[in-house]
């Protein structure tokens, strides 16, 4: 039985060594190159005595970044990807959590790495990716591997202002990849066009199926997601037939009437998720590509990527929402009410192999969300509580209803409004603040009280938060709005925003 994600790579390199595996608009790596560089990095880690510990991968989005991930796993370690655009303050929080000894950089990022508060040694990818592999050492590392060992940690927004690192193991990734490949019918002819960043779990959908089938993944340049015509031309030029994108990337194309000028010619599989798909935009896609498979995917990082799917095989009416559907095979979804009983509408909880290991170095937060299955008192069994409220329709399909807390989805990113607030409150001159999310405008709106102009506030905040978490609109108030029992009145703030929007 396969117990290691890199077994995919070892198998495929024998079948199609010279096929293009991962590429960007300019250059790419074949499976043989990926294989050799992976083993070189694994060998380097072994020689440094780095084993069963986190290794930071701090590189620009590039095929080599992916190979660095695999190299870390080959060495018996787990990768922690860090985004090059993330503010230093946030990176330092992550480094403090992970306490790495090694950081793999590229020529551009290595300079920034010097600013970090860490003991970790920074090495250049190019310096460690072309060494002679130590076959014996690597075989020994592989023989000792256990499928419950972690392979990565990715960081997600935390409501107290500190990001949480979700650790996942071989077994849950293998389970996820096998189910996903079945549902989306990937094969050796699949050509992926990757949109999602490599520092989230979303890119698992392309990375591991590419290894499993000997498929090809193109990393689409980020700038193209602002230029719809050029983006579709890129899809056609590279003969991309499969995309797993956030909804906002798809709607950017359809809402700007791109299809009147150019249509994706090869695209036959479109998986989307992380957000509600506006029905008008979905129908535009569906009518433009009537033969293509459209699949809605749902799942939190803590459930190893995605855990539910729904085949959207028809057009939808305005006001309808596309279901999140049914769980993948080998996963069960429990809807639990406040008393932890099964309910028609309740908190969506995940049971099965796909539940990840927990939040790294964070037992308190882990205990809150990774809990004993309340329906089972006979033996230890962990389920993950998503905080999403869901219900079932007559067909038994799951529908997303709302959140239990102040977590939002904005442009495909999962954001805790509390994390933004904690960072704003920490700025000089701020007395208090609150964030609300306008679903109609898809804007994060910040209300604050204090002596600070908007421009300085946003500038200061840029040093603390990633760009996608910055408020899109803000207002300085004389006094915060409170409910009668003294809590910040978020409903009133949101109403204030909606009202302002209508009058201007």
């Amino acid at each position, binding site marked *: 039985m396969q117990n290691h994600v890199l077994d995919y790579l070892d198998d495929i390199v024998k079948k199609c060594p010279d096929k293009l595996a991962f590429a960007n608009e300019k250059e790419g790596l074949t499976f043989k190159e990926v294989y050799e560089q992976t083993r070189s990095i694994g060998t380097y880690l072994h020689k440094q005595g780095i084993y069963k510990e986190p290794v930071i991968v701090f590189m620009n989005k590039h095929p080599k970044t992916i190979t660095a991930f695999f190299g870390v796993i080959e060495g018996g370690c787990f990768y922690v990807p860090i985004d090059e655009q993330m503010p230093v303050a946030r990176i330092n929080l992550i480094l403090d959590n992970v306490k790495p000894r090694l950081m793999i950089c590229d020529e551009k990022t290595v300079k920034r790495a010097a600013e970090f508060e860490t003991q970790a040694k920074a090495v250049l990818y190019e310096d460690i990716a072309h060494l002679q592999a130590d076959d014996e050492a690597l075989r020994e590392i592989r023989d000792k591997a256990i499928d419950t060992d972690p392979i990565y940690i990715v960081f997600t927004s935390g409501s107290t202002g500190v990001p949480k690192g979700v650790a996942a193991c071989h077994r849950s990734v293998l389970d996820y990849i096998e189910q996903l490949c079945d549902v989306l019918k990937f094969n050796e002819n699949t050509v992926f066009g990757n949109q999602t960043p490599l520092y989230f779990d979303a890119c698992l959908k392309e990375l591991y199926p590419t290894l499993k089938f000997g498929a090809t993944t193109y990393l689409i340049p980020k700038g193209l*997601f602002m230029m719809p015509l050029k983006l579709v031309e890129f899809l056609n030029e590279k003969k991309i037939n499969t995309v797993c994108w956030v909804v906002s990337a798809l709607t950017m194309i359809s809402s700007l*009437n791109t299809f009147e000028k150019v249509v994706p010619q090869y695209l036959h599989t479109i998986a989307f998720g992380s957000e509600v798909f506006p029905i008008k935009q979905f129908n535009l896609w569906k009518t433009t590509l009537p033969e293509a498979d459209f699949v809605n995917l749902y799942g939190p990082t803590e459930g190893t990527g995605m855990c539910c799917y729904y085949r959207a095989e028809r057009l939808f009416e305005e006001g309808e929402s596309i279901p999140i559907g049914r769980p993948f095979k080998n996963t069960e979804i429990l809807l639990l009410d406040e008393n932890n009983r099964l309910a028609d509408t309740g908190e969506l909880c995940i049971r099965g192999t796909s539940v990840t290991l927990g939040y790294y170095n964070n037992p308190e937060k882990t205990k809150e969300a990774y809990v004993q299955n309340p329906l089972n008192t006979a033996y230890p069994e962990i389920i993950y509580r998503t905080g999403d409220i869901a219900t079932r329709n007559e067909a038994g399909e799951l529908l997303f209803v709302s959140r239990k807390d102040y977590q939002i989805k904005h442009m495909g990113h999962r954001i805790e409004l509390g994390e933004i607030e904690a960072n704003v409150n920490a700025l000089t001159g701020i007395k208090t603040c609150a964030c609300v999310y306008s679903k109609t405008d898809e804007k994060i709106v910040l209300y604050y009280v204090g002596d600070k102009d908007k421009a300085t506030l946003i*500038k200061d905040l840029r040093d603390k938060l990633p760009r996608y978490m910055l408020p899109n609109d803000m207002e300085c108030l004389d006094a915060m709005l409170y409910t009668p029992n003294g809590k910040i009145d978020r409903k009133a703030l949101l109403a204030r925003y909606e009202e302002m929007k209508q009058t201007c």
Partner: protein
Amino acid sequence: MDRLLEILSDLHPEIDFEECTTLIDDGILDSFDIVSLISEINEEYDVVISAEYIVPENFNSAEALYALIEKLEEE
């Protein structure tokens, strides 16, 4: 032009839009900004910026964007 500058500084109060000519090249505007801009320009000036005009040259500065709006208004 003043109204466009207002729309832009609502999006990014920290940027001097009268001076900056690298809004796209330096990643100041992202895809979210572009989509919001297009919808606000549509409301304000009643022009539709269609996909073929969404290229870096037209969005790198407020001036270039305003020139595009004027061109579309004439059509």
